[in-house]
């Protein structure tokens, strides 16, 4: 089950660059929330702050509060624990090339010492079905390497890998930007299906995609959150002039 995310006074830096400035925002549970904005506006940095991936970069720094469910992730819990509860899908598919499809999907469980063979089988099947990949790969689960799949299949496998640990939140950083339209629409369908069970935060460059999959949309510009509202409101009647300029294609 998903949980809500509450962000207060979040600031982030890469070296001397102030990438995120005073972000305040509440992301509802069990809904999809889209983050849009031009390149370099800070939306990827923002999602990376939600599972403490930002701080894995040695020159990065972050201040502020992020509450996921009832936990303050920067104070109550270690980064390892929070990443067990918050799944992430990256822009480029990143399967483990030396592992089979099966091992890729259950890698999160295996590294946590989950050894029950029968349950693993079940979880792998359920995750791959959720990621709409089961029928395409079920015959060579343990024969083929995860890297032998096509780009779209790899990305759905990475989604299955994230789902296998039953996360409370699923972060997606431009999950479809490296994919063809058919794979993209499969992933969008998937997000649409999954949001009843998970809190999904999706970064996207594609405004139609945001409109299709998300209930809430946030518009980032130059490290600030310009506007955060229901997707309908953002795309039909934005209250900020800059949002309107961006969605009507006047810049960005």
């Amino acid at each position, binding site marked *: *089950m*998903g*949980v*809500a995310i509450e962000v207060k006074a979040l600031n982030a830096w890469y070296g001397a660059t102030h990438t995120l400035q005073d972000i305040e925002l509440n992301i509802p*549970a*069990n809904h999809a929330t889209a983050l849009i904005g031009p390149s370099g506006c800070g939306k990827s940095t923002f999602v990376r702050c939600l599972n403490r991936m930002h701080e894995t970069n040695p020159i990065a720094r972050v201040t502020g509060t992020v509450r996921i469910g*009832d936990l303050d992730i920067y104070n109550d*819990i*270690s980064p*390892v*624990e929070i990443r*067990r*509860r918050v799944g992430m899908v990256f822009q480029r598919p990143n399967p483990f090339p030396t592992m089979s499809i099966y091992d890729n999907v259950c890698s999160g*469980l295996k590294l*946590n*010492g*989950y050894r029950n063979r029968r*349950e693993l089988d079940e*979880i792998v099947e*359920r995750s791959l*079905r*959720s990621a*709409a990949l*089961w*029928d*395409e790969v079920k015959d060579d689960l343990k024969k083929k390497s995860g890297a032998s799949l096509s780009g779209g299949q790899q990305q759905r496998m990475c989604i299955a890998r994230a789902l*296998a*640990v*039953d996360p*409370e939140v699923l972060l997606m950083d431009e999950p479809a930007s490296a994919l063809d*339209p*058919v794979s993209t*629409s*499969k992933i*969008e*369908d*998937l997000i*649409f*299906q*999954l949001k*009843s*069970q998970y809190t999904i935060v999706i970064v996207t460059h594609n405004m*139609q995609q945001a*409109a*299709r*999959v998300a*209930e809430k949309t946030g518009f980032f510009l130059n490290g600030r959150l310009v506007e955060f509202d229901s*997707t*309908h409101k953002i*795309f*039909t009647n934005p209250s900020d002039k800059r949002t309107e300029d961006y969605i009507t294609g006047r810049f960005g």
Partner: protein
Amino acid sequence: MSNLHVPNPAAGNPEGSVPVRIPVPAAAQVSLQADQPISAVRRYLLSRGSSSVADRIFAGIMLLCALVIFALVALIATELITQSHLSWHAFGLSFFYRFNVDPITHLPLFWDPVNGIFYALPFIYGTLITSLVALCIAVPLAIGLAIFLTEMCPRWLRSPLSFFTELLAAIPSVVYGLWAIFVLVPLLRDNINPIFIRIFQLPLLERLFGWTHLFGDNGLFGGVNLGLGLLGAGAILAIMILPIIAALTREVMSAVPNSQREAALALGATRWEMIRMAVLRNARIGIVGSIILGLGRALGETMAVAMVIGNSPEIHLSLLSMGHSMASVIANEFTEATSDMHRSALIEVGLALFLVTIIVNAFARLLVWAVTRGAPARVQ
């Protein structure tokens, strides 16, 4: 934007394929309170600790492994320093640069254990010169070999060629020494050195470049052609470090992503231009690193050098002259060093070798840093 909140209609089933079946666990219907039922997987994961203790232990063990290196270096250095203090006391810093003059021949006299004269300059000179000669021969060969292997070698030739390259690295150095005495030295003496001697004594070159003092009878290829000597030692060293440099360079070059090669080729680059622009530039740090490793081996190589360098503690500009190196003098004389002073002096030569290696490495690192910092430097 009329179809908000609706999945992309085009997405429906573009291939008429897989209906998405989403299992909705019982938990999905339950409200989001703290006591909500959670799945078995989640309960299991929550039961796992933060592992922060284990993480810290792991980091500690890794730190310990790293500290072992420092401890080893410190131990070696202290041992060398304490054991050489006798000769340090007697000669001080002059150990590294001074010499006596032979009363009969009036030539400089650096090293005469019988009369208690111990000055180390010829060994330092011999080590540096032979290593330099080795690099001059080995680096172009190794990079050429690596380029051939990664960029233009036909598939069937690739593995035998790399196998033989690596085989060269596995031959013991004493075998190299023997081979050098029986094959390389006569080859140099009879076939290769005469060519160089002829070139370096061309009157034209002598007139144009005489000011460098590298040409003519007292130049780089003057004196008696014995085959043994600095050039022979440098040549055998070159053969020994060639496989190291070639193998590492090949690894770095094959790690350059193909997209870089395609980017250059698509701009109309010829094969050589592509290699220069896409492969060598990207691999330059690794190539310099492999050269440093090869140099390290050349500086410390003992046996093969001792067998061909001629073992005479003298300094001559000519590469044909005999010389001595730091490692080979220790190997040759340590068993015969009967006086305490002799032994202490040899250990101080060892200390000097240690320091020279450190200095050369630091210098090479500086070079890498200078090449790679700031704006991308061009390696021609």
